[in-house]
């Protein structure tokens, strides 16, 4: 079975662990629990009749990309940059994470998750900003809600499909 390491990165409290838990265990907790270090888990994904094992790395979030331990990113075949649609700063910081990831591997498949969609309306100004950032850096944006389970499967499924074709890793 093909195995691919995928890192979830982004500022603190954007919902990386919530997306991780929703996708891997289909569970959600209302309580915010700050992540220290990294949590690694395997999740099998079916991509066009093939099975792909995603080795998901839920990394510790900081106030911006400078606190991210770059050693966590080694060997990553793809990455999900998570932002919180209720906090503009986390959306704007996506650019820094993209630069950081692309500095190591310009061809690395990336996806942006605009999380906490359940807390904003789809026409909210922050959603527009997230679309603009995604368009500017040519990284597909998925609007998600780990709370409601919206967009989560779609986020990893679409990244998985790109990973099957991509061979490059950091």
């Amino acid at each position: 079975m093909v195995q691919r390491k995928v890192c979830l990165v982004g500022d603190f409290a954007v919902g990386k662990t919530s997306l991780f838990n929703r996708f891997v265990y289909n569970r959600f907790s209302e309580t915010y629990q700050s992540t220290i270090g990294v949590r690694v888990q395997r999740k099998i994904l079916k991509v066009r009749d093939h099975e792909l094992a995603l080795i998901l790395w839920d990394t510790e979030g900081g106030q911006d990309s400078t606190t991210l331990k770059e050693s966590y990113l080694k060997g990553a075949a793809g990455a999900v940059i998570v932002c919180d649609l209720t906090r503009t700063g986390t959306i704007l910081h996506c650019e820094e994470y993209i630069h950081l990831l692309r500095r190591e591997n310009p061809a690395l498949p990336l996806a942006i998750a605009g999380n906490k969609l359940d807390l904003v309306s789809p026409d909210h100004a922050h959603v527009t900003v997230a679309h603009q950032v995604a368009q500017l850096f040519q990284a597909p944006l998925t609007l998600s809600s780990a709370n409601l389970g919206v967009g989560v499967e779609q986020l990893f499924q679409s990244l998985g499909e790109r990973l099957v074709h991509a061979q490059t890793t950091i």
Partner: protein
Amino acid sequence: MHKQLSDQSPMTDRQTQQLLALSVAYIMCDAALTIIEASAGVADLLGLTEHVLPGQALTSVCLPLLGYEAHLYAICARTVPDLVIEQINFEDRHGETRYVSLVVLPQESEPGLVVLLSDVTVQSQQQQRLQQQHHELLLLHEKIAAQNTQLVALNAELSQLSQRKSDMIAIVTHDLRSPLTAITGYARMLLDGMYGQLLPEQQELVQSMYDQGQHMRELLSKLLDLRRLESTELDKREVVNLNLLLTRVVFSFHDHARLAEVELCLAEDEEVLITHGDGDILQQAVANLVSNAIKYTGAGGKVVLRLARLTELPIVDPPLDARHTWGALTVADTGSGIAEEDLQHIFDPFFRTAAARMRGPAGSGLGLSIVQMAMRQHGGRVLVASRPGEGTTFTLLLPCDTQDQAASQQ
């Protein structure tokens, strides 16, 4: 294994011993990343349900190393010194979060690797608690900042709306004043018999027309005053002698009080009190209070004006600045008083008490709003105490100087 590491590791003996002392488990593997040997604690530390056996692939047992294969081969080949992955966390079989850090080093005696695993749960849990608090504070800070931004925007919008309202009042009142002047003027001419003697019934109708017109003029005038007070900062900072101001007000209402059969008197303190501000506005505020007092005090009643320096500051919210000298200017009447339920509304624009409404259209409901606004502009307060059937006392508190203080400042 310990011997191998301490003898031949590229690290010093001391460093290796320290690492081994910190580690609770290890895995040894060959150059193909196949496990040769693993200590008993590995499965427990990695949250595995089965024992780690020789022959297994390192990356199948130690999931976090998956993806690092190129790096691991480089360590074997000694082109890279080591690999450190800190604080890998997982849930153990009891549902508790455990933290493990791992260090990968080359074997010296033969091509291969040593993976050292350390349980860093205790220190990581402490770090997690601190980080959690830090993040929660940052979130709170972000939330407050966002709310502040919203408040600033809301405030700007409200100011704009208030300005529009004021502009509208200014335009309307200005445009109404000219035709009203003509209407009351013509009514006055008719009443004065300039176009012949009116029949008693005509006289009554024209008189009513004139009175209503005058009332509207008064209302418009007060609306303009209120708008002026609301929309501008106090631009006059002249010296205002409050004793003289009270004397002027009493003098101006002398005839009015006599006609209403109300005794109007001034119980003046000997001390002269000076304040700084707009004398016209302050005089108008006091005049509004005296006018109301006479209006709501029946024949035979009494209205007393008093001015005194406060020797003890009353408890008000927000509190008075104790660095100032404060003057209290009171207008007390023996009139009908104000019902308790009305007291909290009497400073609202256009509010009129039930008693006032019974008296007919004579009041605008703006007089006390003007008083309150005038006090705000002068850094003062207005207090009211009333007992229905016994009378009402309004007190204007103003920051003052005694005559001596004023003289020493000059």
